[in-house]
């Protein structure tokens, strides 16, 4: 009964370093999302995917890349970390549907600090 699992849970990076955040879901959901959450700003969509092998930009994609090689996994990469990318990152997944209940299921988040 794992749902959406994010690794790592915490990470501290130095400016310029790179890293990959992993999101895995076991609900066979088609759609997956990466958000960042900053104080007072809600959740902002970075990138999303509507299926294996497809990705698209969200509201704040600059400085991030993503890949969805397998349906259950969605990876978020930071090529050259900057202090402005210090944030809490959430992955979410859902199934397609316009009028069905398409609730997004969130992971526990990754708290990332860039020094």
């Amino acid at each position, binding site marked *: 009964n794992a749902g959406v699992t994010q690794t790592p849970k915490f990470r501290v990076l130095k400016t310029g370093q790179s890293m990959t955040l992993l999101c895995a879901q076991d609900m066979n959901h088609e759609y997956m*999302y990466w958000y960042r959450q900053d104080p007072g700003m809600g959740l902002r969509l970075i990138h999303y995917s509507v299926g294996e092998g497809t990705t698209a930009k969200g*509201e704040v994609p600059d400085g991030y890349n993503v890949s969805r090689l397998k349906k259950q996994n969605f990876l978020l990469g930071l090529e050259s970390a900057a202090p402005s990318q210090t944030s809490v990152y959430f992955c979410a997944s859902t199934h397609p549907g316009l009028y069905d209940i398409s*609730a*997004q299921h*969130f*992971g*526990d988040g990754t708290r990332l600090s860039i020094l």
Partner: protein
Amino acid sequence: GQQVMQIPQYQHVQEGEDFTTYCNSSTTLSNIQWYKQRPGGHPVFLIQLVKSGEVKKQKRLTFQFGEAKKNSSLHITATQTTDAGTYFCAGGRPYNAGNMLTFGGGTRLMVKP
């Protein structure tokens, strides 16, 4: 682009008092969802509204979707300490490939026992 504004940003209430948070979109929405996030936790889905003027209730929580499908509200009657957390509205756009949501900034509810 689409913007979703939520007010108030913070609300302190005494246990037993009522609470309301309001959500307004700059564009017409296809649906609106509400989520709750406890401190240190992740957002958890509460409900989805789709129809113009729709009202749904979950025990002490009442959710409304405006007639023009551009605003929504969440009202909690007789708050309890377990209601504390941040409530987010999230709006979906019409013809939205990917079921993308635009989240409001959230209302943090603090309940004093």
